[in-house]
């Protein structure tokens, strides 16, 4: 971490960048937050990069691009896909960003720790970016507990897209191969269900939705200046959630709007306060796109046309595809 901080201070000092976009120590040991740093002191005192820094900073560069001078931004390998996609859509200015690709050893989910019955967390060791800890030691009000690092990892890290940064100016740190699950296994499990079961499953999950819009706000693909769900143009402006349809409509349309653009960064599921596995919508579209139109990874480059803005003469017919059980 110190290497990162030192490099940031250098770049600030020599005027290469006007500010640093990174993670600031939070009020709890596991909730760092995205933040700008403009001084060496601030960096030294408050910058953090550890296992809890899951936040994808690429979306913040939309605003960052509008600021005077360059911004130094730290991107994990998976975040670079989002950044590329944002370049493709002219939402960020590559010239305004100085990208340091940082290493990643899998990001942690405090909910997974809590789910193991661990309460009253005071501090956590083993989450540091240095070292190769296999276990986390959680110091709690009730004494020390240990959790295997793997068991506390975010879902997305189990299906990691890889250790490579798709775009960067320089790289710092090593990444670790954390992939130990099939990306589409969960989607396939649902696909195999009977319609009633599918419906019951999503009904149960989506009825938890409180329409806090966290998923939308964090999503690097959901970068519209004004969301259609806040717009009067569709008569779909937010209403109170009196019924289950609202969130279905919202989540289907949200997934549809990002279809072919979603890099599967998993931020939506990470931030959902209700723990809804929102990535299952996006991943379904990704799976369908791969199957119908050939493998496609959004953000792998910044030029190619997305699958929904291109076609072939022999594309599958709608409905025929829906017939798969």
């Amino acid at each position, binding site marked *: 971490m110190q290497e990162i901080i030192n490099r940031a201070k250098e770049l600030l000092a020599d005027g290469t960048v006007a500010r640093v976009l990174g993670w600031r120590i939070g009020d709890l040991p596991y909730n760092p937050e995205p933040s700008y740093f403009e001084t060496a002191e601030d960096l030294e005192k408050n910058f953090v990069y550890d296992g809890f820094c899951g936040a994808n900073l690429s979306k913040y560069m939309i605003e960052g691009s509008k600021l005077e001078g360059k911004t130094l931004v730290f991107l994990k390998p998976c975040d670079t896909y989002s950044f590329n996609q944002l370049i493709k859509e002219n939402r960020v200015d590559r010239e305004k960003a100085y990208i340091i690709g940082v290493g990643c050893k899998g990001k942690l989910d405090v909910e997974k720790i809590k789910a193991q019955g661990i309460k009253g967390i005071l501090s956590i060791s083993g989450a540091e970016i240095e070292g190769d800890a296999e276990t986390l030691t959680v110091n709690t009000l009730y004494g020390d507990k240990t959790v295997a690092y793997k068991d506390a990892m975010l879902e997305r890290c189990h299906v990691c897209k890889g250790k490579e940064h798709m775009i960067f100016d320089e790289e710092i740190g090593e990444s670790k191969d954390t992939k130990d699950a099939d990306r589409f296994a969960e*989607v396939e499990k*649902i*696909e195999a*269900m009977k*319609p*009633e*079961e*599918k*419906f*019951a*499953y*999503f*009904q149960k999950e989506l009825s938890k939705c409180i329409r806090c819009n966290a998923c939308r706000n964090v999503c690097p693909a959901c970068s519209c200046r004004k969301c*259609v769900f806040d717009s009067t143009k*569709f008569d*779909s402006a937010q209403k109170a959630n*009196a*019924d289950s*349809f*609202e969130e*279905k*409509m919202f989540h*289907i*349309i949200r*997934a*549809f709007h990002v*279809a072919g653009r979603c890099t599967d960064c998993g931020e939506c599921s990470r931030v959902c306060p209700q723990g809804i596995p929102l990535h299952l*919508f996006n991943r*379904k*579209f990704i799976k*369908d*796109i791969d199957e*119908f*139109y050939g493998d496609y990874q959004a953000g792998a480059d910044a030029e190619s046309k997305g*699958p*929904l*803005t291109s*076609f*072939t*003469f022999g*594309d*599958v*017919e*709608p*409905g025929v*595809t*829906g*017939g*798969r059980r």
Partner: protein
Amino acid sequence: MSITANEEFRPKIVAFCCNWCSYAGADLAGSSRLTYPADVKIIRVPCSCRVNPMFILRAFEKGADGVIMCGCHPGDCHYSTGNYYARRRMALLFSMLDYIGVEHGRTRVEWVSAAEGVKFSQTMNEFVAKITSLGKNVRLEDLRCRK
């Protein structure tokens, strides 16, 4: 879904038809007096690519029991490529509806040319029969919209 209600059940069906082929096909069905149930109501759009998935979900939200989209045959689009995009969009949307457990068959895409009055009426007859057999749409309806 009550089975007993099925006997008097008259489905609400929204059909999006592109102006150049399918709407004309529906006109031809009309001028050829080829009947299909009155449950089908057609909305004219310039091209199948004008059909936003939002429109389809909205129809279901408001209580439609089935939604069908008709366009020119692939290759015959008045705007040359519109229906190709529509085809991809609908393929994904329908797959998603399937995925969240909406009964298969509540949505349909059919390519109907201006000359296919017969096909138009046949398609609508089939679709109405299918929706009638599926019964009322309860999985996507916003109950607040029900009168």
